[in-house]
């Protein structure tokens, strides 16, 4: 049986969407029995997707230069790209920071917060540099399927993956299409 490889990664998100992936519970096993192979995810040992995967899944909005790299990397490696959660799909709650300049955002977050003493804005090259505006994934690369929701329901993720695994085009309707 030919494996269907899935890789996931997260950007500027809260990992809630990945919790929804886990929330598929025994249906994850079902998908694996159907031939799905979880190639790499932030919540497994392997983090870096193989050179070629069938389905790439991204959670979170694009907020730093690192995120742009991750998005482009995933797009290059996967045949189908699925954006999951309001942040990846629309920009979501992260876009709140678009109302402020990046400098103000960092100053507020690392120095001026009431609970912070002797704060410092981190400058390590390991940490991505904030872009001026937060964007949805489809503003950077082409996205093939969208699962909005904050977080998306496990049912919606399962439905989309199952449709894709079985070679159909998913269409979210009813309770599967939610923005909250």
């Amino acid at each position, binding site marked *: 049986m030919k494996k269907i490889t899935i890789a996931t990664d997260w950007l500027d998100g809260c990992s809630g969407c990945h919790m929804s992936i886990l929330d598929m519970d025994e249906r994850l096993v079902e998908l694996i029995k159907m031939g799905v192979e979880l190639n790499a995810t932030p919540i497994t040992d392997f983090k870096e997707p193989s050179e070629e995967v069938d389905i790439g899944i991204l959670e979170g909005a694009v907020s730093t230069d690192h995120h742009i790299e991750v998005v482009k990397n995933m797009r290059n490696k996967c045949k189908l790209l699925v954006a999951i959660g309001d942040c990846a799909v*629309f920009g979501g709650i992260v*876009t709140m920071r678009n109302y402020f300049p990046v400098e103000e955002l960092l100053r507020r977050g690392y120095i001026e917060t009431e609970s912070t003493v002797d704060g410092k804005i981190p400058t390590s090259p390991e940490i991505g540099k904030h872009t001026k505006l937060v964007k949805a994934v489809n503003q950077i690369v082409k996205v093939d399927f969208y699962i909005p929701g904050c977080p998306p329901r496990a049912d919606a993720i399962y439905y989309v993956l199952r449709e894709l695994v079985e070679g159909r085009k998913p269409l979210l*309707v009813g309770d599967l299409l939610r923005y909250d």
Partner: protein
Amino acid sequence: MALVNIKINGQTTQVEEGKTVLEVLKEMGIDVPVLCYHPKLPSIGACRMCVVETRPGVLQASCTLPVSEGLEIQTDSQTVKKARKFVLSLIFSERNHYCMYCEMSSNCELQDLGYSLGMDHFELPTYMTKFPVDTTHEYILLDHNRCILCRRCIRACSEVAGHNVLGISQRGIDSMLTADLNVPLGESSCVSCGLCVQVCPTGALTDKRSAYLGTRKESELVKTICANCSVGCGIEVYKKANNIVQILGDWENPINNGVLCKLGRYEPLSDVRERITQPMIKKNGKLEPVKWEEAIDRAKEILAEGETAGYISASLPLEVLSKFKDLLGDNVGLLENTSNPVGNSGKLSDILNADKIVVIGVDLDKNFGVVGSFVKRAIFNDSELIVVDDRTNSLSKFARLLYQMKDLDKAIGNALTGNNPVIIYSQTDSSIIDSLSRISGKAKFIWLAPAPNYLGAKKVGLNGNIISKKNIYIVAPYIDKLPEGINKAILQTSYYTPAVKSADIILPSPIWLEEEGTYINLEGVEQRLTRVLTPPKDVRSNIEILSSLLGR
């Protein structure tokens, strides 16, 4: 009504002339998405969600398009579907429509359309401008970031409620919902009727006091009437776990047609007065909680002396008023006693048809908001307002003529030059009554009865002055003071007040939202108050208390 032939999706059908295409489609059960359209507001065709195709490639808003002979429309063509989705994506691309942190999520018509049209991502980049959030109003939160400029609130405020507070300033992408001449909502001429919130399809206008109490969808709806004043407006109460989530005006009630005032819409959600939740008896000069049986027995002992005068508030249901009369016979008086020899000859709807309206000594915006709304709507349609008042009156600025009380006769004289004068008054001072009696029959009178069920009290034969007795028994939800020189006082009441301390027996009673019964409003219309909330555990209904005192 004349009929015209129109073709809908290829099917010929006969429909009544004078209707809009949207009305016809709705009647036929054809689903048309709408956003700026509201069945109770005049249509303006602003949002273009409801477009239909009238000729290939020609789209028209169905909410403003009247049916006409030979009209052909497509409601479901690819052009229509594409246009509607495009309109929706344009609306979502302006301002902030991220649902996940919006309090109105799942209570929002814009979100519902996103779902029903299958919008699973944005085609257009979002517009990243931060708009102000106006928190200045006591009851209403205005978040411009959520506003889609559909102008429902403006039409509700001006054409339905008559207050004309809201409008649009600027043009195009800079258009902003504005109160008065661009002042914060809390500093504007807004009278807090809340109709704008009731019609807002998104989270732009929300009730502060309903925030985070739960959505309307997950609440239980009870239709009842407001028992705060004698107008008797129909209200829709949304409740959850015995708490009020939100109160809306009942569009179907013929008295108020959806319009409410601050008292009906917000007062019950703002009530922080301390409730009495158990029966009490004064022992050694101090009120102490007792069991109901003990309180009833003690009250019976006092009543058995035959030296008790009863006073009851005409804010209570007819059944309670009548039962109290059964208990104490002729020794019962009304707390809100007054006389009204002129009588009511007008309905509130007569205000809308009046060419001259005289308002005597009452500030309608403050005390009878919905009547004020009727008057303002009439002014909007060119009726002339004459205000007679010695104090400042919020309607003065709309008045054609202002008179002092001493010139009442002059004001009335002017009113009588009209064809359909309506006179609105609340006081019953003999000077006013004398003046009004002289023109009896020449104008319609609307007397603003002083209590929600005042006419109900009159119907059961309750009148004013009674002989004062040794003891007193008062039934009213709120009692602020007791008469002097009383031996024993029984209070059947809901709230703690200074008067409660000086009473001898306290029988805790429900507030109006926990009551049920019949009310007769100032027009003489009989309506049913439906129970909305369950009273606290040790509070008994007024009827139950009176029945146990009657020994039944």
